[in-house]
């Protein structure tokens, strides 16, 4: 009994200390204690965690982000239990229509899906569209297959089974990957298609980027797809992929950003895979934040709405975008950032725009 009381007392003392230290953080900026809550995609989570914290220490508004998956983010926004959601795949027209009110998309950063593999001593593997199709549909099963050899003269390809590792959980990374495969291969489009989870023709499933990366690094002869921020940070062997201009491109910040250089619709809902820019890495994509266009819902305060759009405006500004590169995400090119800012200025409270 006594110990239980002691424990509870300790917990409350800790709480009191933390509240006072939190207050000090808020005092710095002089703003009221507004807290923003968001939930959604795990793909941008490392980047969001970093920039959200930096925003808090600079401006005082506390931000909480939960990486529960894009579906969770959309659901949370639908249920109005968050200020905004985050999703790797933009909402289709049907899904937009199903939302309780009009929703806008704000692209926040670019990422890519890299083709990772484990072949010690074999760097710079070039995989053409045809090779990708044949490997991932199970038609080529060995690394020293004639077709792979023909495309990679000079590389010592071993007589080893190809083990394909894909994601077992639904994910935006799978979505971008399958969207690309659908665009470059009619066989894939017919048999598998695009989606966050798929009916895979071959291969084994591992959970999350870490699961796939871990399995690949522990299995010689393995090949799979991983989110770029993960592959860059862990320095995993990545293959060069052919973009629509025919160039073999290595995934990098520059080549990923280049994928967004083309025409982007006003509402920014577009897949950037297989884009036309000759320097672009073809398996790239935006990740978006979604929020309601009319912010006065469910007794929401104007302060809360203003804090939300002010933050998002900062997120697409050069200040935040400059931090993306440090953690292996590609920043929005100027055109995309401009469109994002325009959309933010269309977000209203009681019909009047919140930002100038």
């Amino acid at each position, binding site marked *: 009994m006594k110990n239980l009381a002691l*424990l509870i007392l300790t917990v409350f003392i800790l709480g009191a200390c933390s509240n006072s230290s939190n207050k000090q953080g808020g005092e710095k900026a002089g703003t009221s204690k507004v807290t923003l809550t968001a939930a959604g995609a795990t793909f941008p989570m490392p980047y969001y965690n970093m920039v959200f914290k930096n925003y808090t220490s600079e401006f005082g508004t506390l931000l909480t982000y939960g990486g529960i998956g894009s579906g969770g983010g959309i659901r949370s926004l639908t249920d109005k239990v968050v200020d905004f959601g985050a999703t790797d795949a933009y909402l289709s027209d049907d899904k937009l229509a199903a939302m309780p009110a009009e929703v806008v998309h704000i692209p926040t950063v670019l990422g890519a899906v890299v083709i990772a593999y484990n072949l010690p001593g074999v760097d710079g593997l070039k995989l053409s569209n045809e090779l990708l199709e044949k490997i991932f549909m199970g038609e080529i099963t060995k690394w020293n297959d004639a077709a792979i050899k023909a495309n990679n003269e000079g590389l010592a390809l071993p007589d080893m089974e190809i083990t394909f590792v894909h994601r077992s959980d639904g994910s935006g990374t799978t979505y971008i990957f399958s969207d690309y495969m659908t665009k470059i291969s009619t066989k894939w489009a017919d048999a598998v298609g695009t989606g966050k989870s798929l009916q895979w023709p071959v291969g084994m499933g591992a959970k999350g980027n870490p699961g796939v990366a871990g399995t690949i690094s522990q299995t010689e002869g393995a090949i799979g797809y991983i989110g770029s921020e993960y592959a860059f940070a862990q320095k995993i062997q990545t293959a060069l992929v052919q973009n629509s201009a025919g160039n073999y491109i290595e995934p990098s910040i520059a080549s990923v950003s280049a994928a967004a250089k083309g025409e982007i619709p006003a509402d920014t809902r577009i897949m950037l895979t297989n884009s036309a820019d000759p320097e672009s890495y073809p398996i790239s994509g935006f990740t978006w934040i979604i929020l309601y266009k009319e912010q006065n819902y469910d007794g929401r305060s104007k302060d809360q709405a203003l804090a939300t759009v002010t933050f998002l405006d900062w997120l697409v500004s050069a200040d935040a975008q400059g931090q993306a590169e440090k953690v292996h995400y590609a920043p929005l090119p100027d055109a995309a950032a401009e469109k994002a800012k325009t959309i933010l200025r269309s977000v209203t409270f009681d019909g009047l725009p919140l930002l100038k």
Partner: protein
Amino acid sequence: MNSAAKITAANLSRRTLKDKLFKGLVLFLSLITISPIVLIIYKLVAKGYRQISLEFIIKTPPNTFEAMTALSNGELIPGGIANGITGTLLMVVLASVIAIPVGVITGIYLYENPGKPLANLTRNISDILQGVPSIVLGLIAYMWIVKPITSGFSALAGSVSLSIMMLPMIVRSTEETLKMIPQSIKEAAVALGVPYYKVILRVLIPTGFSGLLTGILLGISRILGETAPLMLTALGSSVINMDITKPTSAVPLLIWEFYNDPNMVDLIWSSSLLLMGMVLTLNLVSKRIAARTK
């Protein structure tokens, strides 16, 4: 020796052999059971001990860039899991406050009403609840609390999902412990005219305290390490939060975040080590309490 004695003697040596073999089997299987335990604990300690420090307990986690810089410099990752520790404590305490009274009292009810259909139903339902995946309980708490009551993710919702998870263990261990108390003790108290509630509070619970505590401990240990339900209810937080109507972090949630971050994977082991430390402390403290009441 006559033949009867010979048979008895042979019988005895056969029974003694069986006895020795059985003991050997028990020891052997216990040894097999220990091996994974030792392996797991060793792995956690070996990979995690370096990160444990005062800073680890009182600071909040670093961001991925700070971790990346530290890794490339060969240093220890800065920061800690303070927000997770306080969040876990907050939600576990709240969950216990909900689950312990309900669980113990239900266990007493089951013990007092053994054959009754309602009791059987309750017991069966309690056993079934044990098998519900934690993510489903999280979903339920999301529907009942996050949406209608707190209009947002909250520690309260997290605590509710955790408390449902604790219930079956507390209910069952209470019932089974009380069943082992010799009837004579209870009957003596009743015969003395002691009112029912006093029999429970002064006789049954103290006598069965050790068993009750075991069930409570098991329940708490389990919820200390649960991630899935908290993702849908408490969501997480980058700072220490003690407000139960707001999103809160927890050590398992932080472990999930570290898992998904390419630079912070190493923190998983030290965080688990800390959790194990909490379980160990809890175990030792409660065994002390149990010993004192014996």
